[in-house]
């Protein structure tokens, strides 16, 4: 340490603060301040479109209102259902694709890059062009399904039974490459000697899969699902453009409902309470999940 003081210019400590300062300041100003502001508003009856009207402190009233509202629980159920199916499908298909890609056949690098393309696209724009594919009169999706089995006319977006599946399909199409890519990294991290040793012990291929491959990929798969879980809990853009929460409220996820309350009905106090509840949920679940994930990793 003492050696470094001989160098010219600012001390390391000064440089450290100079370098970190601006980032921390910006995060505090544009992220933390609004969050605190939202928490404060959640205890008032504030309406952002009514300028000049002093908001009044109402205590926990907004929170009680949110938690007692049946419609909110319906939205949470829609969100949970969406998350369950997308995560399940993406885990299974993603892991399957990764296992296949790991058999280093010729051209697998190129194919990996092509498979990854959907997840880099703008979710809102993806939502728009899937409304065309799902169009009941002229959509390609409907045509292909009817080509294999004639269901007659059906409307993926317009029917309340099918609409939840329409968003699951698009999300799975878009994000399966994400789990695939991370699982692939997991597969490549397994040292070869483990398999060599297993072969010496005459372990069958199935046993090698269960006792070597699966445990090594699991932490990677869980990490991928954590990222996807957080993202899909917040899901907004793709679904807004695809179904805009409809028909009725069949695909109205928590974020979409929040946007309606905050930016269409302008119930700022109430929607802030809802936002805080969502934020605490995501944070709580995230923390528990990370703890479980670390326990699995340690084993």
């Amino acid at each position, binding site marked *: 340490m003492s050696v470094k003081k001989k160098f010219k210019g*600012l001390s390391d400590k000064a*440089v*450290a603060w*100079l370098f*970190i300062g*601006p*980032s*921390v300041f*910006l*995060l505090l100003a544009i992220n933390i301040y*609004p*969050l605190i502001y*939202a928490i404060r*508003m959640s205890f008032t009856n504030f309406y*952002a479109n009514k300028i000049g009207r002093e908001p009044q402190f109402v205590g926990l009233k907004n929170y009680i209102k949110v938690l007692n509202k049946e419609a909110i629980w319906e939205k949470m159920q829609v969100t949970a259902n969406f998350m369950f199916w997308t995560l399940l499908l993406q885990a299974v298909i993603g892991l399957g*694709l990764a296992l*296949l*890609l790991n*058999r280093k*056949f*010729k051209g697998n*690098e190129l194919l990996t890059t*092509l*498979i990854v*393309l*959907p997840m*880099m*696209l*703008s*979710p*809102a*724009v993806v939502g*728009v062009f*899937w409304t*065309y*594919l799902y169009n009941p009169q*002229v959509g390609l999706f409907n*045509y292909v399904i009817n080509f294999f089995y004639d269901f007659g006319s059906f409307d993926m977006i317009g029917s309340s039974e099918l609409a939840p599946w329409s968003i699951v399909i698009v999300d799975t199409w878009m994000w399966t490459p994400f789990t695939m*890519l*991370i699982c692939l990294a997991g597969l490549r991290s397994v040292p070869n000697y483990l*398999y*060599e040793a297993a072969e010496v012990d005459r372990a*069958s*291929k199935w046993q*090698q899969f269960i006792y070597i*491959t699966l445990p090594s990929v699991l932490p*990677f798969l869980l*990490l991928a699902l954590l*990222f996807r879980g957080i993202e899909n809990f917040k899901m*907004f*853009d793709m679904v807004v*453009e695809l179904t805009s929460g409809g028909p009725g409220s069949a695909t109205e996820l928590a*974020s979409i409902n*929040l*946007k309606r309350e905050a*930016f269409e009905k302008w119930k700022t106090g109430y929607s802030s309470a809802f*936002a805080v509840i969502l*934020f605490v949920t*995501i*944070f709580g679940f995230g923390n528990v999940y990370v703890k479980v994930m670390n326990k699995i990793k340690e084993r």
Partner: protein
Amino acid sequence: MDTSRSYLEPSSFSKKLAATIIIVYTVITLIPISWMVMTSFKNVNSAISYPPEVLFEPSLEGYVNLFTNRSRQSQEYLDSLPAPETWYEELVRSREMVITGPSKFLGRYSNSMIIGFGSTFASVFLGALAAYAFSRFRVPLKDDLLFFILSTRMFPPIAVAVPIFIMYRKLGLGDTHLGMIILYTVVNLSLAVWLLKGFMDEIPKEYEEAAMIDGYSRLQAFFKVVLPQAMTGIAATAIFCMIFSWNEYAFAVLLTQFNAQTAPPFIPTIIGEGGLDWPAIGAGTTLFLLPVMIFTIILRKHLLRGITFGAVRK
């Protein structure tokens, strides 16, 4: 059984089987994107024909419609006009319409560019500074600070959108380029710091220490030695930030309307006469997605790192 050969050397049959399944998946997964690109080259009628047309006569109608505003006119009026001077005017007239002016698409597209480049530059610059400090110095509460920076990414955008909306209204930043640049810079900061810290950790400390023994100050060593060494990482990070700003929708739709609106909230509003103008939407989508696809191909080696905030490195 022959198939029970080892994991390390799959039999050629199992390799072929894997390759076949992967190729089929790749083709299926690319159909929606290809279909949108194909639609952009159809004319309005062939885009809504059933069964869907795979072979069609290519047309630039979608692109013309994307870039222009048009109004329908009577045949007599069209006949009274002088002959069309350009091919696109001719195309529009054949649909019994005249061009009334350019559409908003170009403006929205350049907004996406300005806001994308501005915020990318700012977040990579600030991120590189912070990443270097986290990588090299003993910072008090380092892990907590790093986690704090990451946790800001978990906020649902809608949750902070209302306060930001009110704040921006007071500061006069609502619906401005500067406001959106600042916002996207902050959203991207967490990614930039985490990714760049990983890249900087990989640069040996000895490089800048040698430079400092030669008389460089810490700042000079950072700008003249470390930054050039980290160029690949910086480029990869920049592309990730650019893609995020390019694709972002929630803030854009809530905080901008006329002046600083980017392309994602605009593309869905492209509507033709009597229903959606699918070729024009296809054209907008194609032009919008093209840069991202090119970037993805450039990025392919760093993709994994980028999408996991540097948690998984190859």
